């Protein structure tokens, strides 16, 4: 199923160049992600993965080339995009509740000056329910485990009714079991809602098990296609300087996507 509001290509980068000062980060990057698919951007540290995400969110502008999201330049108000960061760094003891965090996903829709309505709070409850965190809505965000915090951040992204979820290293700091549960749950949501997923990750093996397309980035796109093909390519060993990981697609996903996750403590670090 594909989101009824989306068709064709959702993300488009065409010959994009970007540099921070004199340091070139992206050199002629072109990529395209069709609606309803799960594409994962992999690559070593400093390859430009986060820069690509920031360009797609409209936080950065390319020095050359074009970036479009839903056929328009990114960063335009009202684009149905949900963003899931690596985490949020609150000062210790700051009393932000899980519900407060998720409600922030509605702020773009609510607009300035106006307050959240009962409908907005209803959407927050629904989104928390989707990620099985409704029972912890009044808990302080900082008291949750790393895996639970990530699920809350997904709920924050979902609450704005997105067609596209952009995830930036969403499982960094999580243990293998929590990572598998995370991707299983994200894929369940993708199938149920027809979302397009675009994820930057270091966890090559994990994303290769779940994504339909892997894009190997090292300042430029070195390889792209189905995970098995990309992982077999010479570019992987050249970029990572080690043999490509062996991936069994599907086995992990079916084992992990429906595990109960209601325990207040799970893998990962808050």
């Amino acid at each position, binding site marked *: 199923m594909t989101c009824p509001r989306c068709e064709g290509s959702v993300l488009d980068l065409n010959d994009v160049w970007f540099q*921070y*000062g004199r340091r070139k980060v992206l050199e002629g990057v072109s990529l395209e992600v069709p609606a309803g698919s799960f594409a994962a951007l992999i690559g070593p540290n400093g390859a430009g993965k986060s820069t690509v995400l*920031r360009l797609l*969110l*409209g*936080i950065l502008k390319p020095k050359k080339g074009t970036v479009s999201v839903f056929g328009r330049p990114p*960063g*335009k*108000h*009202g*684009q149905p*995009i949900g*963003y899931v*960061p690596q985490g*949020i760094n*609150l*000062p210790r*003891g*700051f*009393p*932000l*509740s899980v519900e*407060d*965090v998720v409600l*922030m*996903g509605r*702020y*773009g829709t*609510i607009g*300035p*000056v106006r*307050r*959240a309505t009962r409908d907005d709070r209803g959407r927050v409850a629904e989104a928390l329910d989707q990620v099985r965190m409704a029972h912890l809505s*009044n808990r*302080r965000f900082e008291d949750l485990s790393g895996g639970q915090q990530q699920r809350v951040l997904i709920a*924050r992204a979902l609450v*704005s009714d997105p067609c596209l979820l*952009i995830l930036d290293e969403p499982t960094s700091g999580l243990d293998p079991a929590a990572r598998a549960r995370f991707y299983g749950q994200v894929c369940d949501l993708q199938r149920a809602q027809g979302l397009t997923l675009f994820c930057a990750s270091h966890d090559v093996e994990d994303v290769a098990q779940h994504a339909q397309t892997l894009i190997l980035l090292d300042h430029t796109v070195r390889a792209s296609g189905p995970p098995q093909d990309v992982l077999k390519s010479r570019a992987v060993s050249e970029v990572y300087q080690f043999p490509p990981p062996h991936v069994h697609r599907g086995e992990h996903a079916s084992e992990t996507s429906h595990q109960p996750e209601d325990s207040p403590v799970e893998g990962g670090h808050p």
Partner: protein
Amino acid sequence: MMEFVSFGFIQRALLTGFLLGATCAVLGVFVVLKRMAFIGVGISHAALGGVALGLVLGFPPLAAAGVFSVGVAWVIGWITRKGEVSEDTAIGIFFPTAMALGVALISVSQTYRQGLMGYLFGDILSVGPGDLWGLLLLTGFSLGWLALLFKEFLFLGVDEEAAKAAGLPAAFLNYLLLSILAVTIVAAMKLVGIVLVSAFLVIPAATGQALSSSVRGMVVISVVSALLSVGAGLWLSWLWNLPSGASVVLFSAALFFASYLLGTVRSRG
């Protein structure tokens, strides 16, 4: 107590203190969230340069300090956003420079040194009916913006990238928050003085944080703690003949330590 509140100058001091205390307390939530305590110290010291410029050039010192502090805060914000110098370094360069400018200008004349003491340590008991209107305007500016854009500032403080991705004008909001901080600090100089104003921005909010389990609760407790500090601090200062600014800050700190102990006991229980 009745005698204390029967004096006109005490009534003006209480009114001014309550307004400034409430403004500092609400703003303090963002100072704590965005870890802006150092920038608060910096702006308050830079304000001395503005006061000195006003005194020497014949402009109203508070207005001069306001314009000067907002300008310096914007320059710091701009340099930091360019990303070539860290915020700490930029503050460490600009604010002592602005303060040194103030000290150099003040040293030109002995006459100005007397007036300067009031700005350094606060002299809320000397607030006249004319000052009250100016302070009402400044606190109205700050409280008005904070009330209108509270949720946007909160989102920006929690996760700036996600706020940008949601379409919020992050750069505008950051400059606006810096301006509110500068204006509030300049207004609060009259209450607790340049030296102590940054403490008044942090301590009530920290008290609120220690005792509450939600952001709304933190705002309410911060404001109540600031109002209590102003009322009790001024009363103690009148009773024991203490400097008013120091008395307010000391009472505020006592409330924080009590709330911290209470919070610790509660979390163990």
